[in-house]
């Protein structure tokens, strides 16, 4: 695992600007306006998605475990921004610095109980997805007493962190503020108040069943598989907003889903992307030809650039993918570029969620 301080990180690729709508949304959901909210103004659905996922209620696993998953996944994804945020959150909630360091160093020696260690190991494998975990990877968790629904929720938490990590890394969101604040003496003063505010937000969730009106649209098979978790409704909303957003064509979005599904070896997600492409007038043979070489003579040059970039979001080194993002940005508007980032991040999340499906 890389030492986070060694990770090269470029200047932000998104120019922050004020969005009153997003600020209102954040205030309503979390009670304050996060300093980075301006980064999302170019493509507000990504900002709303990030906030909704961050405050999602948990039913089967507790928030303490979810916080550890955030730390482990951000470390695994080499995301300096999310790592600094996850660390800061743990510090605010009262975890001593020495304990965090132990966790970062090695989960094996971190004096975690066996169930927690298993859960974190599962989250790490899921975020890495080299290759995608299979149903066999769930067995140790089930044997350790986690129920099926808890495993699904754990997979959801790990996958949502993959989304956060991708958005922050691909957009090169500045990690310095979080890193600085984590070391600041001010944190010690403000910590109890902040901790109380965060704990107040974290009420235990309840099983929520979706109405039939929500069982339609892109990736419904995943939404149905997640039914019962509050995350299912949130994901439905995110997918609908992403699909409806006007910055990129639906065809370009479905192609991004398809490229990432193929790169990660997720047949369900690839199949769904093909179905979406068919709806946009691209038959399976044409889609397959594009996917086979990430370019076909019928492919728009901008789409070809977007697809080559989408592929790089699967296995990446932060600075390298940020340089590639900078090159792509030259050919797109800021909103289009950020939507590519958002869709690619969502696609990476969706493939990892395939673990929640019933075994074939």
């Amino acid at each position, binding site marked *: 695992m890389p030492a986070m301080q060694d990770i090269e990180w470029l200047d932000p690729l998104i120019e922050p600007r004020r969005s009153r709508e997003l600020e209102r949304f954040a205030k309503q959901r979390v009670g304050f306006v996060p300093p980075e909210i301006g980064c999302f103004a170019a493509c507000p659905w990504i900002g709303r998605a990030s906030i909704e996922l961050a405050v999602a209620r948990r039913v089967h696993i507790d928030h303490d475990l979810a916080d550890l998953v955030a730390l482990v996944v951000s470390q695994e994804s080499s995301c300096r921004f999310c790592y600094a945020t996850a660390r800061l959150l743990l510090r605010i909630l009262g975890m001593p610095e020495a304990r965090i360091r132990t966790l970062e*160093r090695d989960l094996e020696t971190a004096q975690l109980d066996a169930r927690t260690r298993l859960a974190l190991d599962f989250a790490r494998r899921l975020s890495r997805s*080299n290759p995608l975990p299979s149903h066999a990877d769930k067995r140790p968790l089930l044997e350790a007493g986690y129920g099926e629904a808890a495993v699904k929720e754990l997979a959801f938490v790990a996958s949502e962190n993959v989304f956060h990590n991708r958005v922050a890394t691909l957009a090169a969101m500045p990690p310095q503020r979080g890193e600085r604040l984590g070391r600041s003496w001010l944190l010690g003063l403000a910590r109890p108040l902040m901790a109380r505010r965060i704990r107040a937000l974290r009420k235990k969730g309840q099983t929520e069943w979706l109405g039939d009106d929500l069982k339609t649209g892109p990736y419904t098979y995943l939404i149905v598989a997640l039914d019962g978790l509050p995350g299912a409704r949130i994901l439905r909303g995110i997918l609908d907003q992403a699909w409806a957003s006007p910055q990129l064509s639906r065809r370009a979005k479905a192609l991004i889903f398809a490229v990432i599904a193929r790169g990660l070896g997720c047949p369900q997600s690839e199949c769904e992307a093909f179905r979406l492409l068919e709806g946009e007038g691209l038959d399976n043979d044409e889609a397959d030809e594009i996917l*086979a070489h990430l370019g076909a003579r019928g492919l728009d040059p901008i789409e070809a650039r977007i697809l080559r970039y989408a592929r790089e979001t699967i296995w990446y080194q932060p600075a390298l993918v940020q340089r590639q993002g900078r090159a792509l940005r030259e050919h797109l508007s800021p909103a289009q570029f950020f939507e590519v980032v958002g869709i690619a991040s969502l696609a990476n999340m969706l493939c990892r969620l395939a673990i929640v499906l019933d075994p074939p």
Partner: protein
Amino acid sequence: MNLSWPILGALVALVVGLAIALWRGRREASRLRRALEAKSADLEHLQTSFSRFAPEEVVERIIAGGISTHAERKEVTALFADLVGFTALSESVEPLVLVRILNGYFERMSRAIADHRGHVSTFIGDGILALFGALQPNPWQGDDAVHAALAMRRELAAYNGELEQEGLPVLSIGVGLHRGVGVAGLVGSRELMQFAFVGRIVNLAARVQDLTRRYEVDILLTSAVQEQLDPRFELRELPATPVPGVAEPVAIFAAEGFQG
């Protein structure tokens, strides 16, 4: 009164002793924590470095459980590159100059390979064995490997320009590519182990590379690569050619460029 002074003295001595023991204990704990953090940082650096040579899972398995001979079947594309006329070159320049030329060559070729999602498996004398799809699953490995070979051609042309300016001999390479299934894992002895890919495909890539001299081309690939290649690559079919160790003549193609 007479009795309480010794008791008080003993208590004070006990408290002072405990305080000293506590202080020493904390100092020792702090020293050990610093040492552990330093070792941990070293280990992290080692792990990061090692991840460039073997898949993360392999690295973690080694760290968790020591060396294991666990291996798995993988489809990879092998690229074998060799310098043409290296023996003559090594006899015509000073050894130190030769090493400098070679290092510059390896540096540029390795970069071209890494830029296209390949990893250098090993340097064999002046030869380079690179693999695509060995560390991470890669459905575009064939395209990546041929793009890497074309990038190596461009890098070498640029490097030769630099060598010419210094009055040094220029280099030329032969590159052979083949795709297939083999076994990836840790191979070696107790003294020296490396993550390697074992299979006929590596030998065949090397044999095909030998044929570049015969056909006077720099990049040759087999039909196993060609069949899954982007049609925008410009290829020239050459006669199927017998190679040692393979029963049937091998269908080969010269890579000329890419219409991108």
